């Protein structure tokens, strides 16, 4: 983990409300798939707290790109940065996707919901390179959002890809959980390991479905973050424990996660206020 002032190489809008931010660092970093960085526009007096963004891509040891949706004050401040702008960065943070988890069966299903895609592009790439038979389920609310969430980059991987949009403007109409269930039901052979990143409700459903098929499932969770490195204890999710309200009832998304086994999570206790 290092704390540094990164420089903006580019910050392009790839679809209305969605941007790709490429940063260069003054020192070498090593980011694994699923890890994230806490970022903040350097000269913004508000908001105060940094925001977490998954490493979307790394371009050598001194450059990484992030994919983000312009949602509130933090991302608005980021969206105003141009080439040469400064970003306060704390990175790399969190655990990473266990690529080798799918070694036993040699099969993987990567489920991406909305901007959750930012966390799984590098994962898909690694799985493919590890020779794992990988299928991508790419969900978004609309065609615009799908492009904003990096669809072209996923297509470029050349892996089997199923697209769903809520409004049917691209691919199959409906939620990404539908093809997930279908595949687990219809496809024979060894169970694929399911890797999922998306909104809480989707993850909760994915966890339900995979449990039903006894498929191993890993999820990257989201929680409001104060620090990103384990000190504020603000980013917790409830996990299953023997005694209901025991000391270990909560885990920090930033340092114990953001990736958890789906079966460990208490999906009845949502971590986000929205």
């Amino acid at each position: 983990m290092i704390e540094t002032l990164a420089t903006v190489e580019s910050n392009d809008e790839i679809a209305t409300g969605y941007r790709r931010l490429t940063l260069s660092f003054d020192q070498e970093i090593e980011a694994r798939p699923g890890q994230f960085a806490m970022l903040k526009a350097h000269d913004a007096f508000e908001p105060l707290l940094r925001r977490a963004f998954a490493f979307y891509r790394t371009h050598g040891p001194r450059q990484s790109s992030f994919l983000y949706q312009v949602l509130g004050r933090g991302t608005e401040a980021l969206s105003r940065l141009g080439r040469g702008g400064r970003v306060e960065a704390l990175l790399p943070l969190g655990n990473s996707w266990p690529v080798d988890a799918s070694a036993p069966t040699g099969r993987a299903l990567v489920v991406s919901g909305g901007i959750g895609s930012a966390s799984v592009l590098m994962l898909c790439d690694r799985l493919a390179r590890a020779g794992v038979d990988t299928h991508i389920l790419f969900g978004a609310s609309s065609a615009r959002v799908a492009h904003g969430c990096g669809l072209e980059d996923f297509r470029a991987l050349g892996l089997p890809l199923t697209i769903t949009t809520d409004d049917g403007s691209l691919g199959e109409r409906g939620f990404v959980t539908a093809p997930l269930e279908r595949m687990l039901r219809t496809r024979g052979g060894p169970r694929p390991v399911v890797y999922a990143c998306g909104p809480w409700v989707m993850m909760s459903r994915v966890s339900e479905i995979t449990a039903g098929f006894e498929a191993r499932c890993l999820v990257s969770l989201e929680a409001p973050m104060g620090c990103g490195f384990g000190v504020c204890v603000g980013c917790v999710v409830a996990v299953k424990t023997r005694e209901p309200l025991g000391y270990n009832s909560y885990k920090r998304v930033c340092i114990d996660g953001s990736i958890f086994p789906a079966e460990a999570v208490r999906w009845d206790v949502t971590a986000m206020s929205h």
Partner: protein
Amino acid sequence: MTGATPGSNNHDERLAVEIAGIRFKNPVMGASGTFGYGLEFAPLIDLNRLGGFSTKGLSARPLPGNPPPRIVETHGGMLNAIGLQNIGARAFVQERLPSLRGYDTRVIANVFGYSDEDYIEAINILNDGEGISAYELNISCPNVKEGGIVIGSSPSAAARLTEKARLASSRPLIVKLSPNVTDITAMARAIVAAGADALSLINTLVGMSVDVNTRRPRLNYVTGGLSGPAIRPIAVRMVYEVARAVAVPLIGIGGIASATDALEFIIAGATAVQIGTANYYDPRVTEKAVDGLSEYCDHNRIESIRSLIGSLAR
């Protein structure tokens, strides 16, 4: 300019202060609950450069804390309802203190309980621990229904607890004041009369935030503690008032994010300061503040920062 660059003022004697007979190499500390158990910051800063830090609130037994969401950002600050999740006093003594002894900085054990007995039990456990410089009683955490809010806003209850803690404690006793009161000087006087060696202030102000789309509170606990630059003016005012009401040293806390902010508190009457929320969004802020104080002393030809304490001109 000496002291202008990090590291160069590792031993800037001008910054040394004393509280309850303990010497702090400088007035800059990490605030309880925002500095973990100290070690979390070792990869980011040189802990030896800080005057000290206050641990996350320690209770006799480990606590799980509140269900999420626990934090939400507001304008100029944040609300938290962590619910004092902590590893417990014993685990702190056994698992954290040994490594902390490797650093040359003051460790203040922040203590919390649901009843007077809880506090005393925690203190008794901590008394066995080596490497603790003082205790800081958190009687003001607004996040826990039992105890906290009551003790922190009742002079008599606070005095009673302070007396008991004073007897149980083998170390200097700092009591941390709540800002959620009509007259903070009445609290301060009662607590000092009861034997507190120093006071730290302020803890968070009780606040709330609503998500108008879901029409739900943004915190699962509904209300939470407001911290950050937004509350600094309130904290500076309270330090100023308390400094004129009691004779013990004060540790100023509330929205400090720079040496300049820290100086506001010192000039208003604080002997030292604790930096809280700023550690989250600027993890090296404590070290930067130490450098900034040295620079200020350079610019203003200050021989000792002690000469600035309560130096407000009228």
